[in-house]
């Protein structure tokens, strides 16, 4: 089961890398979003994928699911939500001001 998820993570990272290396800002942002999904899956896989019960004291004998990666993923999702929202508004504002979405034209003056 872990092998399957790791292969899925690999595919997501490949897609994310392809998107991040493109010229259009919106595609770059989409690439970072896909990469964040891959990283969250990775954290979940690293915690161990198994059938488990809730990690409460009264169910102490049964194998329990590891709660820590889930907390890490929740925090990471919140942070990525804030950052993605910010960078989307930034890209929108840049498009309004500079008039282009193409990264090549955003390079700056030639002699800098």
């Amino acid at each position, binding site marked *: 089961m872990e092998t399957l998820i790791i292969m899925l993570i690999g595919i997501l990272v490949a897609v994310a890398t392809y998107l991040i290396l493109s010229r259009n800002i919106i595609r770059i942002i989409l690439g970072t979003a896909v990469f964040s999904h891959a990283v969250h899956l990775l954290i979940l896989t690293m915690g161990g994928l198994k059938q488990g019960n809730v990690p409460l004291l009264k169910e102490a004998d049964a194998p329990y699911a590891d709660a820590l990666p889930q907390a890490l993923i929740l925090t990471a999702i*919140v942070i990525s939500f804030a950052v993605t929202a910010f960078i989307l508004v930034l890209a929108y504002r840049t498009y309004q001001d500079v008039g282009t979405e193409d990264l090549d034209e955003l390079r700056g003056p030639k002699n800098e």
Partner: protein
Amino acid sequence: MKTLKINDVILRTISRIVVFIILTFGVYLFLSGHNTPGGGFIGGLVLASAIVLLYLSTDIETVQKSLPLDFKYVAATGVLLATSTGFGSLLFGVPFMSQTFAYFDLPIFGKTELTTVTLFEAGVALTVVGVLVTIILSISEDGG
């Protein structure tokens, strides 16, 4: 050229009912976060999506008249509530962010467990609602 007006009768009719369903679901998710999946963040997201649905089906001025809140201040209030829950434990001499709970006998609900974690989650939910609606509003206001 005349712009075609989009016929959004279905959206407006449905959203009158659906907004309340979404709001109820959001409150349920928020309150059940202590023992089952849920909590402040996802409760806040669902509540914010209800408000955004209101903005989509009617226009900004109508919603601004009925909900006269500046959502930046809602977000700030949320962060203040969450951090003062952690800070308040400093005043009692226990380590930062200690939580406590107790059982109370309430009139309708019977024996319920009330905890300070819910205050913290309320702060998180308010922050999420404030941030999300501020972002949606700031993109839509100059886009038109």
